[in-house]
């Protein structure tokens, strides 16, 4: 190794980025060449002074906040994202706590939930009905999933879906929850119905798909535990984080899933007030 070659490799040598053999050659040369040895030591010293004197700085909170504000302004200017539909409908002071609660639920969900596989336009693309339901519930809270029909009249909402879904959409009566509206979408060509209910500052989201499609696990699927429970008891439920829960049940040709910010037991009570599963 000559001095030029030494100089080409010196930084990598100092930083421990050379393969062992090359490092040995480098140090051999330094042992024989005093000038290069000084150079090596100087480089090491300079690197160390840099690393010890210059500590990475943290972004000031005020700057982080102003970046958030800036993004918000951008969104407002671009006008692509109007306020969530339920906010437009209920722009009243009592809704403020709803925002906080919804926000916290979403925040917590983002922190604890497994990141969904792939996303398109804010909608989670996964075949799992449970995951889709939970994700859509959060999209409702965020205003991403907007209604095509706003109505509190169950017959009107049912009528809206007829001919669109290929299966009769069930509009469950959810005790003291008020129907707000619905939207029809497709997933891999499979029609889906979505309903939203509201009670003061909380929301229940109901997902519906063709049971046949889910049962066969073609385009949509359910975890095995849910399939088994559905076959045996016609109902499956799960307690989620943060006091949310999900209930899945069959109704005619539809598979329904409800997600709500209430405990599992309470939600089951809304869906099947009478027909509690019978023990075998």
């Amino acid at each position: 190794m000559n001095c030029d070659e030494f100089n080409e490799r010196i930084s990598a040598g100092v930083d421990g980025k050379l393969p062992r053999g090359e490092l040995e050659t480098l140090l051999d040369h330094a042992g024989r060449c005093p000038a290069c040895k000084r150079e090596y030591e100087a480089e090491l010293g300079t690197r160390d002074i840099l690393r010890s004197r210059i500590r990475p700085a943290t972004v000031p909170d005020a700057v982080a906040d102003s970046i958030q504000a800036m993004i918000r302004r951008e969104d407002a200017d671009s006008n692509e994202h109007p306020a969530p539909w339920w906010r437009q409908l209920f722009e009243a002071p009592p809704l403020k706590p709803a925002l906080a609660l919804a926000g916290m639920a979403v925040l917590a969900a983002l922190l604890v939930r497994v990141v969904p596989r792939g996303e398109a336009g804010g909608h989670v693309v996964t075949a799992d009905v449970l995951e889709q339901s939970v994700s859509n519930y959060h999209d409702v809270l965020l205003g991403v999933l907007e209604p095509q029909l706003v109505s509190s009249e169950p017959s009107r909402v049912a009528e809206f879906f007829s001919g669109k879904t290929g299966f009769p959409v069930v509009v469950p009566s959810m005790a003291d929850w008020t129907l707000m509206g619905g939207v029809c979408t497709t997933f891999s060509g499979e029609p889906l119905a979505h309903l939203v209910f509201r009670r003061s500052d909380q929301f229940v989201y109901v997902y519906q798909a063709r049971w046949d499609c889910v049962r066969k696990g073609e385009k949509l699927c359910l975890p095995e535990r849910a399939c088994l429970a559905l076959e045996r008891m016609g109902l499956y439920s799960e307690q989620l984080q943060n006091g949310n829960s999900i209930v899945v049940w069959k109704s005619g040709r539809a598979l329904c899933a409800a997600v709500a910010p209430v405990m599992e037991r309470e939600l089951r009570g809304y869906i099947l007030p009478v027909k509690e599963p019978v023990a075998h």
Partner: protein
Amino acid sequence: MSYFKIHDVRILRDGLLMAQKSAKHRAFEKEALPHSSLLYNYALRMTNNTADAEDLLQETFLKAYRFWDQYEQGTNIRAWLFRILKNSFINRYRKESKEPETVDFNDVQNYYTALKGGAAEKEQNWFAGLLTDDVAKAIADLPDDFRTVVILCDIEGLTYEEIADFVSVPLGTVRSRLHRGRKMLREKLVAYASARGYVAPA
């Protein structure tokens, strides 16, 4: 209210903010914003000035947000953001950039002469006398190409491979720029130390 445990006010505030965010905003927050520290430190060392660094960071994120649809998912987001920052820096400061401060060559000579007889102790001594500001100034005075790799390697702790990706040069160029950058930096530091009387002229 009973369904959520409120740990502190910040979670509540974040929750409130979160509820109003668009899908794009959330994606950006997840993908881009976590790298603000990396960008900020680079901006800080390039401008050697917190106010300018803050402006540069905001400008970078604003551009990144506007052109978010042009970011190719799955590619190196850090490199993408870094290039936006670097271009912003160049556009903003190139026009007004002054000639880099030159090092008095005599000081350097003096240092080497002083060191020649020298012990490692002397090294320690002149290092110890330097202020963090001196080091920051020395970095800020390096030519752009060299300080970029020095900042990315020695302050940001990036790998050579990632630096090569960031600045779009071969690995060998990263190595040589790093060596030359550190060498220039050292010369500046020696000059400062000498000016402060920490290095005894021969």
